[in-house]
């Protein structure tokens, strides 16, 4: 009973919600990319770019826009908003490399993604040295003014869940609903899914396979970039090398576990977010902390091993489309 109470602790759940967000956003991006038929292993690298550009642009804007007394509330948000937009833009630009290499040049998508991850690590270190003189971390920054839910915040038992809410959290849920609607109810979504299931048929119907696949990859880049920005601006209050901790890959597992659908990805991301929160909270037990920190990674392996069978990937997922040979 005591254990159960500890596992359902409100503070733990609140932390789980916060840690679900980066995984959810990235998993949602992965759904767009893979529904269009492009596997994006490079999401981890895209997140890294998001963490770096998110934090550094926030820092930059905050330094050139000094906050003055009375208008502090309004100006306070400008820097993190600029940071989030920069993180998304960096994600889009970086995923463009994947689109060019994997869609236009039809290089194996796993190879392209893996190289993207290698490039991200080197690029982030280099740019950080250039901007801040050290390789591994940026100066500290301030994120958004946190939100709280009226009424609920006054209930002591619920306070951890109802206060200190980053505006990115509701935004992520909106993006999730939007993703569900776009993929299932719009012409764009139908076309994206068509080029992921049967590109030849889609091509015959006059759908531009290359354009749709580019769109899927670039959207995944924007979302993974945003996830990175959230990590560095809202969670870390600064960039730190390695702060993504493999969440890009965990998000891929969440997407698979969620059966390549946005709502499914939410459930899986929440599960991983919970393990992530657990790994941060249960530090003071008799179990060595190194084993606690890898809980999300162990959970990922379990999930992939146990539930892959019933999952159905898009039929042409991972297969480059070659027009002239078809």
């Amino acid at each position, binding site marked *: 009973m005591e254990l159960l109470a500890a596992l359902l602790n409100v503070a733990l759940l609140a932390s789980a919600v916060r840690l679900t967000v980066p995984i959810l956003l990235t998993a949602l991006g992965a759904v767009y990319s893979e529904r269009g038929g492009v596997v994006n292993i490079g999401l981890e690298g895209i997140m890294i770019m998001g963490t770096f550009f998110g934090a550094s642009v926030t820092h930059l804007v905050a330094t050139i826009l000094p906050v003055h007394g009375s208008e502090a509330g309004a100006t306070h948000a400008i820097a993190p908003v600029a940071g989030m937009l920069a993180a998304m833009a960096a994600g889009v630009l970086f995923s463009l490399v994947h689109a060019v290499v994997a869609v236009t040049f039809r290089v194996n998508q796993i190879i392209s993604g893996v190289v993207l991850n290698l490039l991200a690590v080197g690029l982030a270190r280099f740019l950080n040295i250039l901007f801040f003189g050290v390789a591994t971390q940026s100066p500290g920054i301030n994120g958004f003014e946190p939100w709280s839910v009226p009424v609920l915040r006054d209930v002591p038992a619920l306070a951890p869940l109802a206060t200190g809410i980053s505006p990115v959290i509701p935004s992520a849920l909106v993006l999730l609903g939007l993703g569900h609607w776009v993929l299932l109810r719009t012409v764009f979504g139908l076309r994206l899914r068509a080029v992921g299931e049967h590109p030849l048929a889609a091509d015959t119907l006059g759908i531009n396979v290359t354009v749709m696949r580019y769109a899927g990859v670039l959207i995944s880049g924007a979302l993974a970039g945003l996830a990175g920005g959230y990590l560095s601006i809202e969670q870390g209050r600064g960039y730190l090398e390695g702060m993504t901790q493999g969440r890009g*890959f965990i998000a891929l597992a969440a997407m698979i576990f969620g059966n390549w659908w946005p709502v499914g990805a939410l459930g899986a991301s929440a599960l991983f977010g919970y393990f992530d929160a657990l790994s941060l909270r249960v530090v003071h037990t008799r179990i060595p902390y190194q084993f606690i920190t890898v809980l999300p990674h162990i959970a990922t392996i379990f999930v992939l091993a146990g539930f892959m069978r019933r999952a159905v990937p898009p039929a042409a997922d991972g297969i480059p489309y070659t027009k002239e040979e078809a």
Partner: protein
Amino acid sequence: MSTRVRLAVLQAAAPLLAIAFGAVVASGIILAIGKDPLEVYGLMLRFNLTRSDSVAAILLKATPLTFAGLAVALSFRANLWNIGVEGQYAVGAFAAAYVAFGVRGLPAAIHLPLAVLTGVAGGALWALLPIVLKLRRGAHEVITSIMMNYIAAALVLYLLADVFRDPTQAGTPRVRTPLFEDSARIPLLRPVLQLVGIGIPEHSALNWFLPLGLVLCLAAAYLLARTRFGYEVRAVALNPDAAEAAGIRIARTQFYMFLASGAVAGLVGLSDVLGFFGYFDIDFPKGLGFLGISVALLARNDPLGVVPAALLFGFLDRGAQGVQVFSGVPREVITILQAVIILAIVVGYELVTRYVRAQRKREAERAVAGPSDATVGEGG
């Protein structure tokens, strides 16, 4: 020029063009930070080629990269994506280190091979779960092997800091295992090289793992090109359906290749740990597994290509040190250069492959169209 010669030239030119493309991109970066690229490259060449210690340093750096590149190439050859070399070599190196400091009183002839084989076993063991889960449960090995990397890092850190930390170092900031027995150290190459008249700097840790890596690459090339098992691997990779129809057990072939990949990965860290440091500490070199992916891609997953690819990366790494010290250009520029070269090379190989396919198709069409044309095509 006959078609065959033209294709051979193209295939040889692809890596060179990719390196040139990478150099152009790196030049842009170097210009952007206000330095002269030609000066930087000149400095790099002078530093690498004119200093006597540089050649030894390049070879020393290329040694683990040879094993890492080979490990990755073995799995890629079987259409398997072992991204877990990073974790496999950490576990392998720690396992070997344990034998090196934990087992005492053995003669070197037994102790060193025992330590090396334990490393091999550790690497293979860490590769076991991803491949079993792939073949049995359909879990994609890319993600599971990446997760195993994180778990390996945590496990090694735990064993190092909490279990096997050298008690004499308690109270100091140094976190390392006890010193290894001399009988488990890899002998250096220097005495032998001196016998044949090649002098290398006294402090160079160049050791017998360099020739071992060469031999292993040769053996892998032979295995893949000339044996029945190698034929099966190629068949599984090129056309799984045809391989299965021919009676090849795909799962078994993939299982062995993935374990072989992990076993070779177990050797990656040993040149550093058993050949140089003589203890395992918290600053044990990381990232070699990921560099191995780059080396394998540059080598086009050919074991014989792994050696020059590893040498190139050793060359760039050593050059990066020189450039950082003498011109103030951060060494990360070279990391970016490496990644750009790899991106360019995979695109280049893809274009060449596509061109070759188109050529063959054209030749086949010509052969069908008329026998007279075909003779011209073959002779010309």
